[in-house]
């Protein structure tokens, strides 16, 4: 049985990754998960300098999911390179570093630093507000996405994954722009912008007023978007959004994802990634699937 998948020339032992921001750099999960069993670890977003993040409360539970407005608190690239990359290098897994910034210059500074580091890929979080564009997220404007992708690609020296926001009218337009800019792969979906009001306190549940909704509740939206994007671009797609079980992951793979990421589920089941990876193998056995790659986008054949 062959669970390997390849993204932009990087071979993963299985298609299961962690979703950025839900797994730190793996240190906190080491007690629960053998990181060697994961296809890749995608780190929490890192910026050029430390970010304080948002005021608390930063999270709220929603029906079948959660809403977060952490605000990308992170230690900045210096500490990250000294501490987090060496930690991850101890394991036989691929390292994908998620990059965030408020301006093209900030992204480029981080990407340039990472270009010398022993990592496998970079994932660019373009859901951050762009200070130069009235705080509209980079990922909400196709022109900006293409330009930023091209700028990053020029200096990255390794494959780049553009992580798409679902908070747009037509995600395929943004996906095509990233591909045109030279993205090696696309990952989606980031969280859906939501709001919850605490009626007892008569105010917003999270201090930031809005937050990103994630978890099983968003899965059908994510599967739909992954299906659309996989059919709109030629580059590989990494699917995520509410994956908690192998069956969830397989929905994304059958819809066209080459790999998948487990996110919010890590928060309530620290072993979720391993259970998903094991469950995929079990499915392959049950359905006599030799190579996982046979399953990618197979729904198209049955349409």
């Amino acid at each position, binding site marked *: 049985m062959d669970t390997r998948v390849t993204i932009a020339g990087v071979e993963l032992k299985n298609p299961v990754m962690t979703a950025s921001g*839900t797994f*730190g750099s793996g240190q*906190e999960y080491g007690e629960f998960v053998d990181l060697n069993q994961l296809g890749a670890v995608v780190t929490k977003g890192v910026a050029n300098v430390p970010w*304080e*993040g948002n005021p608390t409360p*930063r*999270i709220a*539970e929603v029906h079948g999911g959660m809403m977060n407005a952490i605000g990308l608190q992170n230690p900045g690239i210096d500490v990250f390179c000294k501490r987090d990359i060496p930690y991850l290098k101890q394991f036989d897994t691929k390292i994908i570093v998620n990059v965030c910034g408020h301006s093209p210059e900030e992204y480029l500074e981080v990407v340039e630093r990472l270009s010398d580091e022993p990592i496998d890929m970079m994932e660019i979080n373009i859901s951050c507000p762009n200070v130069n564009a009235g705080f509209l997220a980079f990922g909400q404007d196709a022109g900006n996405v293409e330009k930023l992708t091209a700028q990053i690609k020029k200096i990255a020296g390794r494959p780049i994954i553009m992580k798409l926001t679902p908070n747009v009218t037509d995600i395929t337009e943004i996906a095509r722009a990233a591909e045109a800019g030279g993205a090696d792969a696309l990952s989606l979906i980031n969280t859906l912008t939501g709001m919850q009001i605490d009626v007892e306190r008569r105010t917003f549940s999270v201090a930031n007023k809005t937050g990103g909704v994630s978890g099983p509740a968003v899965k059908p939206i994510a599967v739909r978007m992954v299906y659309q994007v996989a059919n709109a671009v030629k580059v590989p797609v990494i699917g995520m959004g509410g994956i908690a079980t192998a069956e969830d992951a397989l929905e994304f793979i059958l819809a066209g994802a080459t790999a998948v990421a487990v996110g919010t589920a890590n*928060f309530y089941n*620290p072993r979720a990634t391993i259970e998903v990876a094991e469950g995929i193998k079990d499915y392959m056995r049950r359905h006599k699937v030799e190579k996982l790659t046979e399953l990618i986008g197979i729904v198209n054949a049955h349409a």
Partner: protein
Amino acid sequence: MACKFKRTAAIVSQECLLPGIFSMWLEAGEIAKEAVPGQFISMYTKDKSKLLPRPISLCEIDKEKGFLRVVYRVTGKDTGTEQFSRMVKGDTIEIMGPLGNGFPLDAGKGRKAFLIGGGIGVPPMLELAKQLDGEKQLIMGYRDKQFLTEEFEQNGAFYLATEDGSAGTKGNVLDAIRENSLTADIIYACGPSPMLRAIKRYAEEKQIVCYVSMEEHMACGIGACLACVCKSKEVDGHSHVHNKRVCKDGPVFLSTEVEI
């Protein structure tokens, strides 16, 4: 590094102490063996629409039997804590722990201590009272009705305050300290933010070492999600800003270390 475990725990007993306040004993095996006063566990509902664990402090730890006691408040209708309150002996629940750092016992050894609890911050002070080796003055504050009072009376000099004056000092825990002319050279406290803020100020005025147990909305409970941060004086070890994680760096902090 301390070990954490996620496991299924059998409920040994459940009782309602007061309307909305429940006491549950859990068969928690290795979690109980590792636990120290001031730590908490994550408790998971069986309802798939309520995904996140509920962080609940430990009220008592029976290492010999491997049992843990949690005393918790039901936060409303159809909440996760309401589901917990309906569970009975023999039911099982998913839990993870022990989490957080706990109260430093050595710091209080042989000293004159205040153990202060307020509201649903009262329960963790019971195991601390049982384990702390020193002169213990247990000062508990309630809105009106009281719980765990008999157990506190057996573990130190017990004082209580009620907001409505129905028992003990009318007012808050600091009013009880003043009314009884109590003094201490170390403080341990758990309770609502206004209480902790007042105790922090009191400790600074009197120049007393003070440990406070903080609370914040949590997701993972193990330091990964960065939801439950509090503002800290020192740069934190994780992000190198001033955000200590309540779940992992705390929940117990030196009062001078955090903004409340």
